[in-house]
């Protein structure tokens, strides 16, 4: 059991996360009664099935384009950076990632928040906190269900399959074929490459890009964030003035 830097979160196994995503998908499919599973409509799942509101914004913390999305548990609100809205894959993955926090972390977070101070959690490029890795894994499992990806992969002609040590280019070409064959029209090639690697459908490759950021907070406003940003701006101004006075 490892501990996240933000709150005590179990180190959920990949199988557990896959199961959690599949369970949500199964419940959603029963609820919507007749929709096609793929492409998985993360927006509809979030808004209509889980009854979250989605807010697309460039305010506060989201003035930073690196901060892609966040979830406010006690307001049932998912916030998405407006810079993402025109990127089909990134938009859906960000929503699916926040759904992952809802499914995996909401109850744990709300139980523990009593002892927490207001704070923002941003993912840095490089090492991701455990909760963020889990939400990413969940998002991939939700948008690219194992069975559907495996079925599409099986239909890729053998000549298109990469060698034992595939290049990035070969992986991307393969991912594109799986996206087209499987009808995964709302996921990016990068996400599909990662999924193929995660599912061990391709081997000898390590491929992970993107530095999305995320946050969890407990206060109903962004005042801490705003104040912090103001402090940083004042600090930058101070540095600039000091430099000029030298």
């Amino acid at each position, binding site marked *: 059991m490892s501990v996240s830097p933000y709150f005590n979160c179990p180190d959920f196994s990949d199988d557990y996360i896959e199961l959690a995503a599949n369970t949500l998908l199964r419940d959603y499919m029963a609820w919507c009664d007749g929709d096609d599973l793929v492409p998985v*409509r993360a*927006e*509809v799942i979030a*808004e*209509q099935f889980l009854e979250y*509101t*989605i*807010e*697309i*914004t*460039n305010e506060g913390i989201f003035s930073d384009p690196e901060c892609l999305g966040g979830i406010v548990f006690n307001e049932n609100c998912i916030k998405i950076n*407006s810079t993402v*809205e025109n990127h089909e894959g990134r*938009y859906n993955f960000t929503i699916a990632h926040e759904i992952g926090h809802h499914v995996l972390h909401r109850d744990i977070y709300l139980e523990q928040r009593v002892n927490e101070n207001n704070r923002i959690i941003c993912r840095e490029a490089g090492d991701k906190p455990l909760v963020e890795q889990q939400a990413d894994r969940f998002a991939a499992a939700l948008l690219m269900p194992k069975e559907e990806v495996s079925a599409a992969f099986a239909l890729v002609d053998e000549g298109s399959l990469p060698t034992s040590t595939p290049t990035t280019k070969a992986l991307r070409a393969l991912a594109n074929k799986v996206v087209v064959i499987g009808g995964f029209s709302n996921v990016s090639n990068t996400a599909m490459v990662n999924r193929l690697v995660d599912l061990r459908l391709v081997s000898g490759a390590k491929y992970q890009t993107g530095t999305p950021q995320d946050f969890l907070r407990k206060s109903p406003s962004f005042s801490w964030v705003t104040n912090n940003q103001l402090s940083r701006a004042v600090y930058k101004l101070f540095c600039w003035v000091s430099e000029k006075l030298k």
Partner: protein
Amino acid sequence: MSELGFGETVASLRANKQMGLRELGRAVDISAMHISNLEKGKSMPSPELVTKLAAVLDGNLDELLHLADQIDPAVVDVIQNNPQSVPSFLRSAKDLTPEQWEALQRQVDKMNKQTTKKK
């Protein structure tokens, strides 16, 4: 008449149609963030945008215009094309009961039909 505000009504109509924010934005030629801001009450729409939203969401145009504190551009045209008679008529009709308004509407519909036949 709905007791919801404009933003909530749009959100409710969008949910009924199972449309995403981006899907609705594309349908009415504005960004998803603009739709999001409208639903959150952070901004209010132009009458032209309300007209588009009503058409795409199958909403009641007059109700949406009322909730958005806007007047149908077509109504504005009628007033501007009849700068004396329309204001005068509205002033004299201000105390009519709902039933009288309905009777008046029927009369106007009848006149419209007669005009169409003559054409």
